[in-house]
């Protein structure tokens, strides 16, 4: 197969970048829409500012949750590699 010239290759990459950017944009839109909807339904909240207040209230807890699960995974990984 003939090797493509650099400009065509760069153009192909640019198209891939655009597709990924579009995918990323759609994902963000979907995440925001679904997470917002899920939060409103499960916490029975309608007011945006109240929702933000509650999110802020549990922010640290969520952070700790991910930090601790990450630490657990790291220590498990360490144990496995020690064996």
């Amino acid at each position, binding site marked *: 197969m003939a090797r493509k010239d650099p400009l065509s290759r760069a153009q192909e990459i640019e198209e891939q970048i655009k597709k990924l950017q579009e*995918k990323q944009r759609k994902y963000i839109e979907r995440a925001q829409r679904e997470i917002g909807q899920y939060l409103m339904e499960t916490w029975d909240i309608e007011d945006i500012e109240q929702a933000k207040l509650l999110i802020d209230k549990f922010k640290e807890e969520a952070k700790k949750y991910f930090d601790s699960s*990450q630490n657990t995974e790291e220590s498990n990984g360490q144990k496995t590699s020690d064996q």
Partner: protein
Amino acid sequence: MDKKRPISDLQKRIEQLEERKRQILRLAKERERKKRAHRLIQTGALAEKYFELEHLTIPEREELFKIFANYINEKKPDKFKKKE
């Protein structure tokens, strides 16, 4: 729970592709620059050989070229003329 980062993962992939694109264009530019430099050296060597310029300085060579430039450009056969 392992923290999933689909948005950041996509971002990383985008940045990798952007870097790859920059690299391809950089290499192409470098290759083009080398080809041009090689062409200029060859042209200079041919000019020295056919016009016996070895003993002339660069300003003298330019002066000589200027004297004949118009004449040569007007008289050169069509096949050597720049294609529009």
